């Protein structure tokens, strides 16, 4: 009799043990989801770029995604048409470690930051001038305007 009662308890104990582990696994899975979501939705300070092509009108655009590519290719985030001094994918602006960085993407004519040619990712701040070929980009980072890119992603999905 005592044996049967204790057997039930022993089975309950095994269930508790594996519930502990099961919960740990479940929470780990949830944690991965959460991390993924957080990284995907990482908040990026809004960056404004004033584009001055060699020929044509000046335009200002605002971005909230963590990666911006400029180049001749129409698929780029900042496409500049009809300028042969600009490579297909010329330069990249990216946000990480709490900073915006500019990086040359092995372009033919190079990327210049405030007249200095860059050959490694470099931090940029408001007022910097980036020169790609004959085009100029003026950087304007608004510190206090955060835009959650979630909204944009959802729009993209539609």
């Amino acid at each position, binding site marked *: *009799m*005592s*044996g*049967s*009662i*204790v*057997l039930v*308890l*022993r089975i*309950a*104990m*095994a269930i*508790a*043990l*594996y*519930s*502990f*582990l099961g*919960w*740990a696994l479940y*929470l*780990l899975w949830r*944690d991965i989801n959460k991390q993924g979501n957080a990284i995907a939705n990482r908040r990026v300070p809004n960056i404004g770029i004033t584009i001055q092509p060699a020929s044509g009108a000046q335009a200002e655009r605002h971005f909230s995604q963590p990666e911006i590519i400029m180049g001749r290719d129409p698929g780029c985030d900042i496409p500049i048409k009809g300028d042969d001094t600009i490579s297909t994918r010329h330069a990249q602006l990216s946000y*990480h*470690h*709490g900073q915006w960085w500019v990086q040359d993407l092995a372009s033919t004519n190079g990327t210049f930051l405030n007249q200095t040619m860059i050959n490694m990712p470099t931090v940029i701040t408001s007022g910097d001038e980036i020169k790609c070929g004959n085009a100029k980009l003026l950087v304007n980072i608004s510190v206090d305007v955060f835009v959650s890119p979630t909204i944009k992603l959802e729009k993209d999905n539609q």
Partner: protein
Amino acid sequence: MTDNMQTRLLRWAALFLLIYSTILTLSPAVRERTWDVDYKFQHWLGYLAWLACTYIIHKASARYLQDRDPFLFPAAAFLTGWGLLTIWRLDENFGFKQGIWLVISTLIILLLIRLHRYLPIIRRYKYILLASGLVLTALTVVFGTNPQGIGPRLWLGCCGVYFQPSEPLKLLLVIYLAAYLADRPIIRLNSLPLLVPTILLTGLALLLLFVQRDLGTASIFILIYTTILFISTEKKRVLFASGLALLAALLVGYFFIGVINVRINAWLNPWADPSGNSYQIVQSILAVASGGFIGRGPGMGNPTLVPVAISDFIFAAIAEETGLIGTLGLLATIWVILSRGMMTALKAPDRFRRFLAAGIVSYLGIQSLLIIGGNIRVMPLTGVTLPFVSYGGSSLLTSFVAITILLIISVPEDNEPAALSNYKPYSTLTGMLALGLFACAFSAGWWALYRGPDLLSRTDNARRAIADRYVPRGNLLDRNNKPFVVTEGESGSYERVYLYPELAPILGYTHPIFGQAGLEATLDDYLRGIKGNPSSLIWWDHLLYGTPPPGLDVRLSIDFGLQTKADQLLGGHTGALILMNAETGEILAMASHPTYDPNKLDEEGDALSSNEAAPLLNRATQGLYPIGTSLLPLIRAQYKEETLSDNQLKKLYSSLMLYRAPQLNIPISQADLNTSPKDLRISPLQALLAASTLSNHGIIPAPRISMAVDTPEQGWVVLPAEGQPNEVLQARAADEAAVAFIVQDKPYWSHTGQASANELIITWLIAGTVQDWGGTPLVLVVTLEEDNTFLAESIRDQLLGSITK
């Protein structure tokens, strides 16, 4: 969010430990199979202490360490509680002490959590920290003691409080190495001078440990140094070099250092010396095997049979009581700590904290693998503790500080993880730890499920003898159900009582130290209840209690009255006697003198086995004597002449089955089959069977000594004879030979013969009833280790005479 996750995990851990404690309280009732027992309550103190300490740390971490890793602390607390209750179950004294250490460790943790902001600062004091650890360890060389009084003197302390400095030294080494390597730019292997200080200090620590013969900790040091160097240099070469160095050290140790030689031999071939050098490992494996899949249940196994179960072999104790289910859970919990620790390292905001976290993970992982692997023969045994689980204040405190450092590092800071040029070393290291845990899990399953059933029937498995105290063993009865051997007492203190000690050489004994002999050994399966009972009952009892069901009574063919008479007649003379029903083969009396009293085996056991008179030997079936002239009537029956050639003799002896061991389930001796017939030695049983032909029309019956077993379902079930009857002589020739040797005015024939062996005269007597006698055909053999025909004949007349009157 983090707090919520941590709370839920801790709740499951608390529930597990609650059920564990409840089972432990009830366990005496299950062991003794009655509700009227002393229940265990003391360990609830441990449970409450665990609950309080865990709650306090949980609250403090929620307050001071927001967004810390939510898995690390619950997993560590779970292991600590499991260990604490296991220690309490093994030894209440040590359980109480461990409880106190848990409280002390908790207080220190609370202080650390409150001071968590200062963690980066300890980087500056790396030399002071390591130096103080080294000094403390060095002090053990001079002032070291051992709490148990014997063994390596690795502890410092007095007045009952002991501390092992080599435990915190591991953590201090990790801190020092992490700080030193983080302060340097990425280290290249060819910039050796940069590494000199670390090599010097680690070498110094190793030297101290070698002097102290703390080789387990020394190997952990080498492995910790290797992993941290591997992580900081990102070169696999470090691993290979260190692997080679360890192997070389192992080889040198194997040939020149006694301890290492013993440990490696015990690992390579534990079965060679199971009661000596590999006693620990064999007992540990037996404990794992005894646990099987579901385990015996807390408090219901016998893990105390393994030496130092509270510290070095606590994994075996857990395996026995919670089974493979428990050990896999334990390994998975360790994996949670290691993987989350490595995650913490990757997310760490600077190199120092990253190296520190990775170093702590490797320290916890390597030490767990070394001792678990040592317990289940994955690698040679190293006497280190299982972090969080094993008994030991210094070990618990160090593990707690280590996990707290991990917790503090896991608190995310504003800045992102430090730059990482190559994540490979971390994934390699994590993979190796995972592989190690998997090897341990596989090995635990191997011993518990695949090899388990075989191992448990080993004679050095004391669990069988312990089960005998809790489960009644079957009785041995005479042919009229008069008891020879019974089990007396009640559950927990059953004792075997031999009511008729003179029969000891035949019935044998069952004893926790001396093992089993005689019919107690050959009928063990029935007497122990693992044969004859329905298999579902055997399975159920094993599941519930870890023991076989109550044993079954066995009825023997021996007649109490005739046996008493035979023993009286043989008296103080050395020799043997068997009386058998010549037709059915039922042995009615079997005596072997001198005899002994199996009730006094505790006191006399050792003397008995070295006694020159060999009272343990059953001379009737194991004594081998030269034949001499004893079988003359049989020669007559076959050849009508008395001097035979070797070939004729050999043919006769073969047909009388003297060249074959009789089939009877009792220990039997058999002479070498290649001996010439003149040198052949036979047992009295063989002579008896040959002689039975004259009283049974030339047929040798199949001898029987166990008649029936009392099964719960069908009552008495007859046990069939082991062999078959054999017609070896022509019936008429046999009858005529019997008549030729008839004793005057008696219904039986008889022949006395003599043989000499080692200047000792052996007197043989064979006798049996003749056909004219209408009663049960009987046959008798008497073998005396002295020249005493008169005695042999007087035994014959009194024994056969009393029956045939």
